[in-house]
């Protein structure tokens, strides 16, 4: 395993100080990995990644990005430091155009480099390039997800975190999204993924971490977890997978 690019130690986080949802997580992602974060509903997966992104207050513990302590760095500075986050819902500015969404994303770059950065994103996501003046709110679910990922990739971040990118998408689009994530990871970006869509996520992951009640309950290689019946039953809900599959 190469050096850790993102790690937390003893991370305690939650909306209210007296009501932590994440109870001291020691966690590390190595450069180049694609880690999937699994667990039952209410396990604290979403809160954990939101805390990493700076959207949920951290009450104790520390967090390192590339060896630098970013525990109490403001969310917008984390973006500049190379940590990109794609929330589950409302992850694009619906009242603004595709182009404006991307202009916001590249605002940290020097003015001279912005146009090229947007061109590069359009080359990577040709669907978005077709009509850059469309309102993001008018896009389909899959296109929105593309735009959200494009926005997150705008600054060439070493790490990207995605909170349930497949939620609410049709099966065909879901597989496209997972293909895209695989490609992003292959291009050298470290990916941390929260997912309910267990099978699809395990298929592309290099490592899986299972959270339960705000703590890490299990860790391992995807193939081991997928075949472990006990883990499947308790934490992954594979017994009910057919119900959870998005419509």
């Amino acid at each position, binding site marked *: 395993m190469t050096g850790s690019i993102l790690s937390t130690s003893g991370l305690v986080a939650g909306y209210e100080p007296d009501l932590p949802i994440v109870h001291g997580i020691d966690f590390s992602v190595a450069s180049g990995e694609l880690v999937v974060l699994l667990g039952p509903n209410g396990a604290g997966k979403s809160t954990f990644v939101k805390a990493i992104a700076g959207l949920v207050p951290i009450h104790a513990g520390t967090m390192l990005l590339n060896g630098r302590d970013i525990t109490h760095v403001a969310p*917008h500075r984390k973006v500049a430091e190379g940590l990109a*986050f794609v*929330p589950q819902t*409302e*992850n*694009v500015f619906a009242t603004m155009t595709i182009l*404006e969404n991307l202009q*916001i994303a590249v*605002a940290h770059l020097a003015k001279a480099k912005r146009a090229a950065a947007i061109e590069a994103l359009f080359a990577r996501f040709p669907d978005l390039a077709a009509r850059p003046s469309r309102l993001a709110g008018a896009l389909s679910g899959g296109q929105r997800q593309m735009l959200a990922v494009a926005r997150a990739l705008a600054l060439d971040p070493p790490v990207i975190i995605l909170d349930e990118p497949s939620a609410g998408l049709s099966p065909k689009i879901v597989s496209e999204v997972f293909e895209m994530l695989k490609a992003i990871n292959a291009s050298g970006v470290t990916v941390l993924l929260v997912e309910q869509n267990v099978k699809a996520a395990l298929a592309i992951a290099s490592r899986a971490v299972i959270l339960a009640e705000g703590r890490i309950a299990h860790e391992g290689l995807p193939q081991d977890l997928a075949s472990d019946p006990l883990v499947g039953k308790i934490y992954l809900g594979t017994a009910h997978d057919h119900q959870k599959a998005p419509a």
Partner: protein
Amino acid sequence: MNPQFIMDGLIAGAIIGLGAVGVTLTYSILRFSNFAHGELLSWGAYLALAVAGALGTLSAGLTKPIAPFSFGWALPLAAVIAIGLTGLLALAVDALLFSSFRRRGSAIIIMVMASFGASLALRSLLEFLFTSRPAYFTKALQIAMKLGGGLRATPDQLLMLGVTLVSVVTVHLLMTRTDIGRAMRAVSENPALASIAGIDVRRVIRTTWFLGAALACVAGIMSGLLIQIRPYIGHDLLLPLFAAAILGGIGSVPGAMLAGLIIGLCEALAVQAVGAEWRAAVSFVILIAVLLVRPRGLFGKAS
């Protein structure tokens, strides 16, 4: 009916519109209706008065009217300084008061209440400093020019319309064409997403306060130049400002300006048709009508 009401309405509407643009910006980005916004108009007018007075004592030449207007160079110079000072005042009130509520995640209505307390304190402080006696930027009298079509306006009034037009176009371009403008719209739509999209939300909030206060200051000075300066000018304009912001659709700069003009024209029409004593009820009637028929206003987003 005398068509002059159109000119009177446009000028009153320009003042309301400028104030309403500030209200709509603070409302959409800070997410509460600021009852102290009217006081920023009053403070803007008094700050300009004080600075112009100081400039006048430094150099008497500055008070000599610039033809064809009623005021000397002291006023435009003072206006620029007062805009900065009013902006600082708004930032100070935010730092002392509203930022603490934001940090704690207080309910919207607590911020509304605090703004209500702040408006009382700011207004009465003006009364303490300057007394409630009306003050004037200039004693010079102006003769209205005939504009054709039965309309008349003084050079000062035409200048006000010009300043308003320039201000609104500037704000509109700022909101649509610049980084900070896009950032402001992004924060108004979704502050959490804005922060992880790399936007410094606190900087956006500071910019919003400053911009709203600057426009309020311009509106206050115009109101003072048009009639007179009293500690209550902002308070008396607050209902028209809210009505215009809601009629225009919260968050819409062109909407707030257009709605300001509509309210100004309706007021002027009501003054002719019903009587000046009912002027203040016009915005209430419009407000009720909007809330009944179309609560999101002319250009507002459906929620």
